[in-house]
Every structure is written in structure tokens, then in C-alpha cells.
């Protein structure tokens, strides 16, 4: 085959291979990333996700060791096994990153999210909202004659379920923290 055998003007040739090489299934993973708490670290971690096209479903961050200046970032992401491995490797090689745990892959873990849910309503709706909140172990942290703010913690799925039930009962606003997680056991 010589150069001239390429069809002139053919569009199947590009400067890049445009086909994706990966067809494995995606799964959600929760990663705990222990970082040096210095300015710009969170931006660097988030920049990695946006720059390399990885997903962030939720993200929480706070300093967890005040004397050691360590923060814990919990990221819920989605990807094929190869992408998750790559995310982990990319995080691990960052200079201010001390440790990365894949809470989903490395054995059992507890994962919790906190939500504040405001529901507006009167009469039966109000009673039903309160009854369901009890079942979900949600606490009332604010109430007026026509509204409640419920506080609940649980897995993201549990919060989703609660929000779905509250929607027809007058859900007006919801604030969620994103997931925090720890490995189970000692």
C-alpha cells in the first residue's frame, strides 16, 4: 500500500483515533483521599478530575488532623475498572496526596451523607410527612405552622428514597453534604 492509496479527502482518517478503546461497565466508587492541607490542594485534585474527564458525583472535604494539617477528601466517582484504577494512580502520584483508599473496592465500609430537607404543607400532607420522617429516623430541626426542616443521615440511596417520598408531600428545598466514608472494622 502506498501513500497514494489513501482515498483523497477521506474523513475516516483523523489526527487522533476517535474511537473509545473501552467498553467495560461503569460502577460507582467512593474514594477517600488524605492530603496535606495546603492552599490549592483541593483545586489540584478537582482539576485532575475535570482535566482528565473523570466524573465527580459528590465531594466532601474537611481538615481531620489539625496538628498534622491533614484533610480528608471523599469523592464519589463513576467509571470502568480501568478508569477507577487510573484515577487512583493519578491521585496517588500527586505531591500533596498522602494516601488514597477505594472504600468500594477495599472491603466493607460505612458511607453516610447528611441531608436537610424542607417540606411545606398543611393538613394530611403534614401529618404524613412527619410519619414518614419517623420511619426514616429523620429529626425535625425547624418547624413552623406550615413547614418542617428534617435532618437525616444515611446512605445516598436512603436520602434519595426519602426525598422521593417527600416530593408529593411538599418538598421545597434540599441540602446534602455529599458522602463521608470509613472502612469497617479495626
Amino acid at each position, binding site marked *: *500500500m*502506498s*501513500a497514494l492509496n*489513501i482515498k*483523497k*479527502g*477521506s474523513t475516516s*482518517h*483523523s*489526527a*487522533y*483515533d*476517535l*474511537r473509545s*478503546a473501552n467498553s467495560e461497565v461503569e460502577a460507582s466508587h467512593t474514594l477517600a483521599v488524605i492530603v*496535606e492541607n495546603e*492552599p*490549592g490542594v483541593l*483545586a*489540584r485534585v478537582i*482539576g485532575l478530575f475535570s*482535566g482528565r474527564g473523570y466524573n465527580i458525583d459528590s465531594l466532601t472535604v474537611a481538615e481531620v488532623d489539625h496538628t498534622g494539617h491533614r484533610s480528608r477528601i471523599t469523592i464519589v466517582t463513576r467509571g470502568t475498572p*480501568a478508569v477507577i*484504577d*487510573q484515577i487512583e*494512580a*493519578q491521585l*496517588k*502520584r500527586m*505531591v*500533596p496526596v*498522602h494516601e488514597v483508599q477505594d472504600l468500594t473496592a477495599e472491603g466493607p465500609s460505612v458511607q453516610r451523607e447528611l441531608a436537610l430537607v424542607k417540606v411545606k404543607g398543611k393538613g394530611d400532607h403534614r401529618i404524613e410527612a412527619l410519619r414518614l420522617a419517623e420511619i426514616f429516623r429523620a429529626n425535625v430541626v425547624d418547624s413552623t405552622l406550615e413547614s418542617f426542616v428534617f435532618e437525616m443521615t444515611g446512605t445516598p440511596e436512603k436520602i434519595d428514597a426519602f426525598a422521593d417520598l417527600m416530593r408529593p408531600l411538599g418538598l421545597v428545598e434540599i441540602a446534602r453534604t455529599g458522602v463521608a466514608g470509613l472502612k469497617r472494622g479495626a
Partner: protein
Amino acid sequence: MSKQMTGAKMVVQALKDQGVEVVFGYPGGAVLPIYDELFLQNDIRHILVRHEQGAVHMAEGYARSTGKPGVALVTSGPGATNAVTGLTDALMDSIPIVVLTGQVPTFMIGTDGFQEADTVGITRPCTKMNWLVKDTAKLSDTIHQAFHVATHGRPGPVLIDIPKDVQFATADYVPAEKAKISHYQPRTEGDRDQIARLVELIESAERPVFYTGGGVINSGPRASQLLRELVAETNFPITSTLMGLGSYPASGKNWIGMLGMHGLYEANLAMHGCDVMINIGARFDDRITGRIKDFSPRSKKAHIDIDPSSINKVIRVDVPIVGDVTKVLEEVLRQWRARGSKTDQRGLSQWWKQIDEWRAVKCLAYKNSTTTIKPQYALERLEALTKGMDRYICTEVGQHQMWAAQFLGFEDPNRWMTSGGLGTMGYGLPASIGVQIAHPDALVINVAGEASWLMNMQEMGTAMQFRAPVKQFILNNERLGMVRQWQELLHGERYSSSWSESLPDFVKLAEAFGCKGIKCDDPKDLDDAIMEMIRYDGPVIFDCLVEKHENCFPMIPSGKPHNEMLLSADAEAFRSGAVLV
């Protein structure tokens, strides 16, 4: 015992303590205190560039040719933004450089002050790490950390942004040995069990190939030495990426040439047909792999890399080894020798027979001319006339770069400085100055395309001022040649904006800079002209007028597998009888 000093003085002291001899830079309001300190001392030489992009590429040229970190110093705002291309270039090619930027005073940050830019924000994705230092007490420690980070693990560019008030204020100087570097200690020793698996692969391979990259060069001269021992003792064929040229000598008997998009037929087919691929310090770049699905479909693959994220990033490998090439190769050689230095001799001799058949295709064959200088011919003559000299080659980006990689031979590491990952036109001229500053007596040649060269030609002023006798060997095809080639082959010969119109007269341009200009358009005059360039004691701009429509072959169009390579008509003639795997 601690010493009080201003932040500006600390910068200079820390650079000295880090062994820095030269800084490439450009002053401005936000770095004046540091320039004051540079003025007051004689240990560190300052090379005044003409554009901050030039400073960073010079620092890269210095680093690539010495293995030591290169340093650039620029002002805030536009100084910093001009440095971005160089930083990205160094990130893509894993080059250790330290860039110091001035910043507006801390109390002005965030107010859109004059020449304020969010430098750490802008450069975060193009540095391995960067710091904004808001407290003079942390400055010296941060500079030491920066050098540590730039040179350990996978090397890369780092940046320190220093507000002007931090430069004026005083604090205790932290000496290098007391700096807090402990937490960044990437793993350098390879896993012994994985290395044992690699040794087994070496012992049983019938059709092996070493696929080496810039990681061998970054690991230091000892890595190249060990690689040569391993190749000589196993008698395996070896190919390399653009970045790795010189780690194994081009004159070595197991060398099968560069691989990749414009790599040699025999190298790419060996990659495609091998049963064991041993990747040493390369990263399965898309210019190397072609279509992933069809990349070397029948091989077991081992990958040695200091960066764990390089492993399994694009190609799944069977034997992953995270570690420094030098340390891993030492262990590979130790284990393999201890087990009796075995290889499959029968398989190997068959494999070499096959490779020799591929070699017979003479994939670099081109039709020479007696009236027009063919770019390949120009490089063949340059190679012949400079062989054995203390020679360093830089390039710009384009066809000339690929031809230089194909037609020049590199015998040692750190002798070939090209922009691989980013492909930065305008890199070569400043890089060549950086190389020349590091090696004042060597012959430093920038093989350039006329279009790339124009992108940073102002740096000829720097070459003149600092007596850097760099030779600018411009293969002038009056075309954005590589673009033109793609348009010819893939875009229906629609040559959209790929002409170099209104080119300057390069000889007059040379005169304007005060250096020597040479023009050559006749193959018969070429040798004399090249010799004149080499012998001239000072910078030279060589305008080598070459064939305008030459294409660079072999070529694997993107997204094609290795065995669907395009050859020149002249090589095609040799192929009758040769069989593709």
C-alpha cells in the same frame, strides 16, 4: 544556626545551595528585588532572554542535556503567562525545571492589581506541583522542596510564585538539608517478584523486543549503561521512542531504529509481531500505539515505569514494574545472570532473520536529486560531517523533526533534545541556547523548519549577547510541511494556510542580528556550506532550501495499526517479496 535575610536574598542563596549555576530569565516589577540580589553576586549567571517562553525552553535544553534541573525566573502577569507553554512542554516530556515567578504583593492579591494573574491557578494543570509563598519564613524551605519534587520520582516542572512583599521581608533561612521533603519519596525499587516474572519472559521469549523511552534518559547515564549490557547479553532487538533516542547507540548492532508514527518499518513490525514486549521508561503514547485494539496483539507485555499512573493507562500489561529504570535494570540483570543468562537462541535467530527481511525493505529510501536538496539528503550530509564530534541536536516540530530522528544517529543519552509530548513549534532555538550555555565548547545544532523557527527567532539576540555559537540549520521548504503532508494525504490536497508566505531573507536576518548567515540551495554546495557553518566561531543561521513537497515516510496514519504503514514509493519498490505479519 539560622541566618536572617530578605526573601530576595533567600532565593539566590537557595539556588546556590541547590547547585544552580545559571538562571534564564526576564525582569519586571514583581521580581526586581531578586534581580537586585542577582546583580550583587557572581556565582549564578543570569541569561537575559528575549521572551519568557524562550527562558523556559532554555531551562529545558539545559536540563535535557545535563540531567540537572533548569531554572527560569520571570515576572508576574505576562511574564508568568508567557511561561505556560514551556511548563506544559516540560510536563509532557518529564523534564525537571524550576520556574520562579514574581507576584503582586500579598495584600494586593485578588484586587486585579497591575500585572496580577492567578499564576498558581493558571499553571496548576501544567506543573507537577506549584506553590504561592505568602510568608518569607516559608520561602527557602519551599524552594528546596521544589527542587526535590522536580527531580524525584517522575521529573517535571515546578513553579514558585513569590509576591513582592515576601521578597522584601526578612526571615530565617532554612538550609537545604533541613527542608521538609520527607513525605514526597516515590518508590524507586521495583518489586522483586514482578522482576522475576520479567526474567522468565526474557528466558522464554522467541520474538522479544525492547521498547525504550525517555524514562531511560531521565533515570541517568547508568540506566543507559545497564540497558546496553542487557541488550548485548540477551541479543534482543531494541527500538526506542522519539524521546529515548541515544540511550542505546544508533551504531549498536541490535538497534532497529525508532518506532511510532514515523518510525522505521522494522521497528513497528517488530512491535506488532513480537511475543514479548519489554517497555522500559516509555508510556504507550498514541503516536506509538496507533489503534489500541490492534496494538501488538500477540505479545506478553512488561512495563517498567517510575510513575504508577503510566502503567495500564492505555495498554494493559502482564508484568507491571513500578520503579526507577536504573534500579530495576540492576535487579533484572542480577536475577537473570544468577539464573544462568538464558535466552531462547533458536527462536531469537529466527526472529532476527525476520527482522533482517523487514530491514531489507529500506523504509527510509528516498529519491535523491542532483538539482534540489532533499531534506533527507541534507540530514545525511549533516550526520556524515558531524559524526564523532561533541555534538548536541535540538529540533523544532514538523517533518524536519521526524527526518532528524530518522537520519541522525545518537550514540549517547542527553544528546537529542526535542519536544515530543507537546510538539511545540518554537522550542528548538531557545532549547539549543540552553544546551550551549551548559556545554560551551560543544557543537550545538538546531535542526529547524522555517515556520517553527520564526516562532521564537528573537532569541538569536540572546545567542549573540551570551556568545552561544548555536547553529540554526533550517530545512526551509517554505511550507508548514507536516501540515501540508496531512492535507495532501488526508484532506484532499486542500492546502489550507500551510504555506510560509513572506519569509524573511534569512541571510540578511542573520546579519541584522550580527551573526553569520549561510544560504544553500544546490546539493553540490551543501558539504562546503555545512563545513562553513561548523567552523564558524559564533551563531549561524543556515537557510537550507529544500524540496518543498517531500513527504515523511514511513507513516502510520492515526488510528491505524502498525502493520498498516504507508511507505514511500521508493521503499515500496524494495518490498516485493516481503510479507507482513
